[in-house]
């Protein structure tokens, strides 16, 4: 037991560094993926065939090719054409484009799942596109898309491990290095626990968002704080 603690103490600076790199890739990748998902998801509903076709091509391209190959392409092929990307940029770009392509299908599906009557009512009230999206359609689609996005976010966390392929000091890379000093079981075991904790924390955060979105649609009981607020507003 004390052996394990000693090993841990010795390795903890590197482990901490590795975890930080993994978290940075996760948040950077997730932020980009979200933007790509929303952009492509909205564009997929465009009235113009050209736009929809373009979206289809992009989505199929990034969904249909291996994430590892995409990373290698960005990291090793682009420099041949004179474009050199920093490792961080490469990782975030690959994760963002790949998971963004998957996410766009979640976004598109959620938007089209908002009942047709809601869309028609926004037309009947002459709302502009931006207005109806922001105030009526998106808030309803948001509650529908969170479970799907949650799933993708967790896959993205694990996807960051491919950064170790181009020698970034992420959690996977560090635990691989630790193998020699700490032993296979300990190093990979620790890595698994850390990945699991990150995934659980993010998943929990998105569930909180989902519960909040559902409450706003009146599909869940409001919390005590919200009931008090609503009562106060009603009285005022």
């Amino acid at each position, binding site marked *: 037991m004390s052996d394990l603690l000693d090993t841990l103490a010795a390795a903890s600076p590197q482990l901490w560094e590795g975890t930080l790199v993994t978290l940075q890739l996760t948040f950077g990748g997730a932020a980009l993926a979200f933007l790509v998902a929303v952009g492509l998801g909205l564009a997929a509903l465009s009235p113009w065939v050209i736009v929809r076709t373009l979206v289809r091509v992009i989505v199929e391209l990034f969904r249909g090719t291996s994430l590892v190959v995409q990373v290698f392409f960005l990291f090793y092929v682009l420099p041949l054409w004179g474009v050199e990307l920093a490792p961080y940029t490469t990782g975030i770009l690959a994760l963002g484009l790949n998971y963004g392509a998957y996410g766009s299908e979640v976004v598109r599906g959620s938007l089209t799942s908002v009942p047709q*009557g809601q869309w*028609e009512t926004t*037309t009947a009230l002459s709302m502009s596109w931006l*207005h109806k999206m922001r105030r009526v359609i998106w*808030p*309803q689609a948001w509650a529908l898309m969170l479970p799907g996005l949650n799933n993708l976010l967790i896959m993205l966390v694990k996807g960051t491990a491919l950064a170790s392929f181009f020698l970034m000091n992420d959690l996977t890379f560090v635990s691989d290095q630790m193998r020699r000093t700490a032993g296979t079981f300990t190093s990979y075991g620790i890595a698994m626990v850390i990945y699991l904790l990150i995934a659980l924390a993010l998943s929990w955060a998105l569930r909180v968002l989902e519960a909040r979105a559902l409450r*706003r649609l*009146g599909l869940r009981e409001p919390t005590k704080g919200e009931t008090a607020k609503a009562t106060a507003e009603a009285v005022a």
Partner: protein
Amino acid sequence: MIHFQDVVKRFGDTTVLDGLDFTVAPGERVTLIGPSGSGKTTILRLLMTLEDLTEGFIYVDGEPLTHELRDGKRVARRPRDVSKTRRRIGMVFQQFNLFPNMSVLENITEAPIHVLGKPKQEAREDALRILEQVGLRERANAHPMQLSGGQQQRVAIARALAMHPEILLLDEVTSALDPELVGDVLEVLREIARTTNITMLIVTHEMQFARDVSNRVLMFDSGRILEEAEPDKMFSHPEHERTRRFLQAIL
């Protein structure tokens, strides 16, 4: 005034409206009846621009709605122009379609504030006044899900009225309601018919209501007007055998 001129509507190979011509005078209440698939709901949906017009023109007070004749050619109007004309028209749907992410009051004030640019306080007061009319002022801060179907439909009526339309389209507004909730909704509509001069186009199976509020009834069959008459005449002495059979089936 609403004017349909040579209106054709096709869904794929199916022709729903076939060269339709008719006019509704300002302040007139017209009920459209006919078997399902006869095109009556399509007329309301075309007016609300929820469907594309295949051929022909619709005019609202002489203004073209979605298409106009320019240099002898039929051209689509710009979305902005369509939206301007469309603001004279309001619609109440069979399924209420209240926005679930907003309170009753917000449902009603949303478009007046953000589409018409009304000051918030004014929109709020107007909404409360209209809610009073439909008998739901005390539910202003309720959530749509907390209301019965009949109450939701009355909120939807209030929402349409808050835009102060000149024309109100009522598309089977009581068809999705439990029978005991129909009366309240119809009472609210009767009151609006009595106290305003809003032009109304009504698709309904409530014949007593149609009789009470409308000036004219149009019987549709296969995308054409089979006959038209004042409600009393239409319901007691229809000319066509087809109309007689239809009325017998629903009364």
